[in-house]
C-alpha cells in the first residue's frame, strides 16, 4: 500500500469530534447512566484479608432479608480449566479470571470478591453484604516482589511451577514465569566498555486512575438471552469472557458499550459484568452494578510494581558495548504481569549488539494487574533510561548524543527480534535537539532531563461498515469504544476516501450484534487497524458508487473514476457525462441496485512501532523534597497524525500520567496487607495545578503499512516520563533517584543521605 501523495482534504485537519456535543452537554451516556424498569442493585462482598482460606460462606441470613433477590458465590460459577487467551496486550487465563471475579478456596488480596448480592435498593444490598458470614483462616501474605521470590515466602498457589526454566521446577513457587531475550557475548561486551553503570531500581504499582468507576447493567431473559451495557474497552471481549465464565453461547449475549470514562488498559478485562449477568439470570430482572472508588482501587488491576537491575557499558565515544537487565514484575494474585512486553521493550529503542534481558512474573497478595498504557514498557524504561543518563554523565557525553549514537533506525535488528522498517526514533531525537526547550537556561536547583520510550503498537481484527443514506450522508459503524476521540479520526478517513465533507459522515460505536467482531480498544490499534477497515469499507462504497454511475451512464464501471466526491468518466473515450455526486447517486440508489453499504473485515498487520523522547525541567525544593515540573515537552513519531489535536492530547495525557507515576502515585499497604489509600485523596494523581503546559511535538515518519501512514500513538507517551523526571532531578541537585515514586519524603531522605 502506498502512502497517498495527493493533497488530503481531511487527514491532518482538526474538525470537531462527532460525539463532542453530547459530551459537553452531559447527554453522553456512560456506564452508570442507564436505568431500566424493575432494575435491581448488585453489590459485591470483598475480602478484608490479604491472604486467607475460605472455610465456609453462609448466605442464609442475607437471603432471608426482605428485598434481597439473589446471592451468589463462586459455587454458582462453572469450574474452568487453565486456558490462556490474548487480552489486549496481555493474556488472560479463564480459570484465574473466574477465581478473580469470585474467590474459590482462597482469597488472595484485600478487596478480592467473595460474594455478590442483588436487592431492590442499594441500602438493602449493603445490608445483605453485612449479613453474609464468611469464615476465614487467615494465612501469611506477601506483598513485595523480591520477598515473594524467596524460597521461604508464603505460597499463593501450590500448583504454580515456574514456566520458562528447564527442567521445570519440582516445587511450586510464586515465580510464574521466566522470560529471556539475549544476543551476543555479554562478558566480552562489558570487558570492552570504558564505563559501566549498574543500578537497582524499584517502581510501585500504579492505577490507571480512570475517573469513571466500572459499571454494568445486565438483563437476562427466561430463555437465557443476555443484554449487557457496560463501560469497557472491548464489547467483544466482554461478550467472550462472559460466555466463557458462565458457559454460555456467545450469540446469547449482546454487549453494548456505553461511553467510556477512561480506561488506559484497565477496562480490557471483566470484574462485574459476569456477576451482573449471573444475578440477572437468577432474578429475572435487570441488575445494575457500579463500583465505588474504593472498590476500583482495591479490586481492579493496577500495573505491576517491580524491582529491576540494569547494567550498561559503553566505550568513551558512547557506543554501548553491552546491556543487561533483570526485571521482576508483580503480577498480583494470579500470573500474568506485563514482564514479557517489558523485557521486549527494555532495549528496543537502541541498536545494541550485545544484551540480555531476563524477566520474572511473580504473584503477590495484591489485586491482579491489568493492562496500563504500554504495559511493562515504562517500568523497564525507568531503569534503562536512568542508567543511560548516568552513563552519559560518567562519559561526559550529552545524554541526547549518547542516545543518538546508539539509536535504532530502519534496518536495525530490534532487541526483541524483528528488523525495523521505517521508524522515527532518530527524528524524535533530532526534534529534541532543535527544540528551544533543550537549550533554554535553567536557574538554581533547576535541572533538565530527557528520556526516550518505545511501544510496539498492534493491529489485529477489525470490522467496519459504511451505510449511505438516501440523501448521500454516511453512517460509519465501528466496533471500538471511543476512548479519546477515535470516532473523529475514523470519520475523517471515511470522508477522505469518499471525498465528501466531514460533516456528512456520522459514526457510531456498534454493539456486538450490529457490527462484526472487532478486537478491543487497546494497543494503540484503533486508528491504525480499525482505521484501515474504515478506509477499506469506504473504498467498497466507492466501488459501488462507480458501478452505479456506470449503470446510469450505461458504460463500464472501469470507465468511471471517483474524484472529489463525484463520479466522473475516466477519460474522453468513456463518453461525456455530467459528474454524479454521492448525493445524486444515493438518491437514485433504489433504481440502480438497492441501498449502498460498504463493509470491510480484516486482520491488520504491520502496525508501526512508536518512539518518543521527552524533555522535562524540574525545580527541587531541597528543604522539603518537593519537585515542581517547570516545563515539559513530549516529542513522538505519530506516523501520520490524522487529527493532530487528539494526537497531542495522547502525548499530553500520557506524559501527565507518567509524571504522576514518577512523583506521587503509589499503593500503600499496612502490615496486614490492607490497602491504606483506596481513594483519590491519598492516591495522588496529578491535579491541574501540579502541571505546566505540556508541549506536544509530532514527528511524522509514515507507516508504510497504513493507507495514510498512521502509527498508534496512545501508549508511547507514558514510557519516558519517570526517567525524564529522575534525570532532571539528578541534573538539578546531583541526587540520583532509583526508587519510585520520587515523593517528597523519599527525595528529602535521599538529599539528606547525600544522594
Amino acid at each position, binding site marked *: 500500500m502506498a502512502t497517498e501523495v495527493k493533497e488530503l482534504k481531511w487527514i491532518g485537519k482538526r474538525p470537531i469530534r462527532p460525539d463532542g456535543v453530547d459530551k459537553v452537554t452531559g447527554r453522553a451516556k456512560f456506564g452508570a447512566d442507564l436505568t431500566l424498569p424493575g432494575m435491581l442493585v448488585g453489590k459485591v462482598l470483598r475480602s478484608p484479608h490479604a491472604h486467607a482460606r475460605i472455610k465456609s460462606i453462609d448466605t442464609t441470613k442475607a437471603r432471608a432479608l426482605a428485598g434481597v433477590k439473589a446471592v451468589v458465590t463462586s459455587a454458582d460459577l462453572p469450574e474452568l480449566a487453565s486456558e490462556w487467551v490474548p487480552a489486549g496486550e496481555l493474556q488472560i487465563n479463564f480459570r484465574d479470571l473466574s477465581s478473580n471475579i469470585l474467590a474459590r478456596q482462597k482469597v488472595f488480596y484485600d478487596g478480592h470478591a467473595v460474594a455478590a448480592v442483588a436487592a431492590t435498593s442499594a441500602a438493602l444490598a449493603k445490608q445483605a453484604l453485612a449479613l453474609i458470614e464468611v469464615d476465614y483462616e487467615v494465612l501469611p501474605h506477601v506483598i513485595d516482589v523480591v520477598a515473594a521470590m524467596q524460597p521461604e515466602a508464603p505460597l499463593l498457589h501450590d500448583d504454580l511451577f515456574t514456566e520458562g526454566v528447564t527442567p521445570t521446577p519440582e516445587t511450586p513457587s510464586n515465580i510464574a514465569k521466566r522470560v529471556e531475550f539475549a544476543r551476543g557475548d555479554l562478558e566480552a561486551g562489558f570487558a570492552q566498555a570504558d564505563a559501566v553503570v549498574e543500578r537497582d531500581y524499584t517502581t510501585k504499582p500504579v492505577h490507571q486512575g480512570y475517573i*469513571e468507576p466500572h459499571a454494568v447493567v445486565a438483563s437476562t431473559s427466561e430463555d437465557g438471552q443476555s443484554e449487557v451495557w457496560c463501560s469497557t474497552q472491548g464489547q467483544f471481549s466482554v461478550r467472550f469472557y462472559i460466555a466463557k465464565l458462565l458457559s454460555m453461547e456467545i450469540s446469547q449475549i449482546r454487549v453494548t458499550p456505553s461511553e467510556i470514562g477512561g480506561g488506559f488498559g484497565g477496562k480490557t478485562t471483566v470484574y462485574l459484568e459476569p456477576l451482573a449477568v449471573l444475578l440477572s439470570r437468577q432474578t429475572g430482572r435487570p441488575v445494575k452494578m457500579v463500583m465505588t472508588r474504593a472498590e476500583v482501587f482495591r479490586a481492579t488491576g493496577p500495573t505491576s510494581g517491580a524491582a529491576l537491575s540494569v547494567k550498561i557499558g559503553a566505550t568513551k565515544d558512547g557506543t554501548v558495548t553491552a546491556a543487561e537487565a533483570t526485571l521482576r514484575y508483580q503480577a498480583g494474585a494470579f500470573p500474568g504481569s506485563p514482564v514479557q512486553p517489558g523485557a521486549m521493550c527494555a532495549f528496543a529503542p537502541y541498536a545494541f549488539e550485545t544484551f540480555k534481558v531476563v524477566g520474572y512474573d511473580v504473584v503477590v497478595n495484591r489485586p491482579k494487574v491489568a493492562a496500563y498504557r504500554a504495559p511493562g514498557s515504562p517500568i523497564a524504561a525507568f531503569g534503562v533510561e536512568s542508567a543511560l543518563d548516568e552513563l552519559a554523565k560518567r562519559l561526559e557525553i550529552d545524554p541526547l548524543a549518547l542516545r543518538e549514537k546508539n539509536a535504532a533506525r530502519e534496518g536495525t535488528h530490534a532487541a526483541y527480534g524483528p528488523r525495523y522498517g521505517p521508524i522515527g526514533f532518530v527524528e524524535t531525537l533530532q526534534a529534541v535537539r532543535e527544540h528551544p526547550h533543550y537549550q533554554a537556561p535553567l536557574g538554581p536547583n533547576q535541572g533538565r532531563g530527557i528520556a526516550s520510550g518505545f511501544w510496539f503498537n498492534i493491529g489485529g481484527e477489525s470490522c467496519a461498515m459504511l451505510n449511505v443514506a438516501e440523501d448521500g450522508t454516511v453512517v460509519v459503524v465501528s466496533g471500538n469504544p471511543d476512548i479519546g476521540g477515535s470516532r473523529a479520526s475514523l470519520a475523517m478517513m471515511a470522508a477522505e476516501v469518499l471525498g465528501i465533507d466531514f460533516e456528512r459522515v456520522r459514526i457510531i460505536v456498534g454493539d456486538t450484534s450490529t457490527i462484526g467482531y472487532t478486537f478491543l480498544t487497546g494497543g494503540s490499534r484503533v486508528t491504525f487497524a480499525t482505521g484501515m477497515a474504515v478506509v477499506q469499507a469506504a473504498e467498497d462504497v466507492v466501488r459501488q458508487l462507480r458501478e452505479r454511475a456506470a449503470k446510469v451512464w450505461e458504460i463500464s464501471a472501469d470507465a468511471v473514476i471517483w474524484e472529489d466526491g463525484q463520479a466522473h468518466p475516466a477519460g474522453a473515450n468513456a463518453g461525456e457525462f455530467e459528474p454524479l455526486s454521492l448525493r445524486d447517486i444515493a438518491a437514485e440508489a433504489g433504481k440502480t441496485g438497492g441501498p449502498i453499504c460498504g463493509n470491510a473485515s480484516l486482520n491488520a498487520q504491520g502496525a508501526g512501532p512508536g518512539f518518543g523522547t521527552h524533555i522535562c525541567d524540574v525545580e527541587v525544593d531541597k528543604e522539603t523534597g518537593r519537585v515542581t515540573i517547570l516545563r515539559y515537552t513530549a516529542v513522538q513519531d505519530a506516523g501520520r497524525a490524522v487529527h493532530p489535536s*487528539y494526537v497531542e492530547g495522547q502525548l499530553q495525557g500520557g506524559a501527565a500520567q507518567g509524571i504522576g507515576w514518577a512523583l506521587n502515585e503509589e499503593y500503600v499497604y499496612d502490615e496486614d496487607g490492607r490497602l491504606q489509600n483506596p481513594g483519590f485523596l491519598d492516591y495522588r494523581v496529578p491535579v491541574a495545578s501540579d502541571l505546566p503546559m505540556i508541549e506536544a511535538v509530532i514527528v511524522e515518519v509514515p507507516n508504510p503499512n497504513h493507507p495514510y501512514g498512521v502509527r498508534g500513538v496512545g501508549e508511547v507517551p507514558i514510557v519516558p516520563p519517570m526517567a525524564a523526571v529522575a534525570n532532571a532531578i539528578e541534573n538539578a541537585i546531583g541526587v540520583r533517584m532509583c526508587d519510585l515514586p520520587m515523593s517528597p519524603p523519599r527525595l528529602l531522605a535521599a538529599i539528606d543521605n547525600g544522594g
Partner: protein
Amino acid sequence: MAKYHVSTSINDEAVEFLCEPQQTLLDVLRDELQLFGSKEGCSSGDCGACSVMLDGRLVCACLVLGVEAEGRAVETIEGMAKGDQLHPLQQSFLEEAALQCGVCTPGILIAAKALLERNPNPTETEVRYWLAGNLCRCTGYDKIVRSVLAVAEEMRGG
C-alpha cells in the same frame, strides 16, 4: 424509610422530589431526577466530576444532601447550553479538543464557568488552581486550561 419532600429549583425550573435523608444531591439528580450529566467518580469530593452550582457556589453534589436543596437553586451541566446555543466554554472545549473520554467534562465546564463569572481575566495559574478540584486523567489539563483562557479572552471581547 420515610422520605422527605423537597422543593427546589434546578436549572431555573421549579422541581419537587422525594428523597431519603442520606441520599446526596448527586444521588437525587441521577437516580430520582434522571439528570445523568453530573458524574460520580469518587463520592468523597476528591474528583469534582459531580460539580454543580448551589445558590451560586461551586460545590460537589456528592457532598451535599438532597434535603439540603430545599428552597435553593441548583445549576447542572444540563442547564449550561441555552436552547440550541452552547455556552462559549462548551464550544471552545469542542474546538480545542479539551476532552478525551469526556467523563470529567461536565464538572470541569461547570467549574470553569464559575471561575469566569468571578474572574473574567484569570492567569494560567489561577485557572489551574481553580480547577485543581476537578481531576482529568486523559488530557494532562493542557487543552482544558488553554480553552478556559481562550474563552476568558473571548468573553472579555479580546
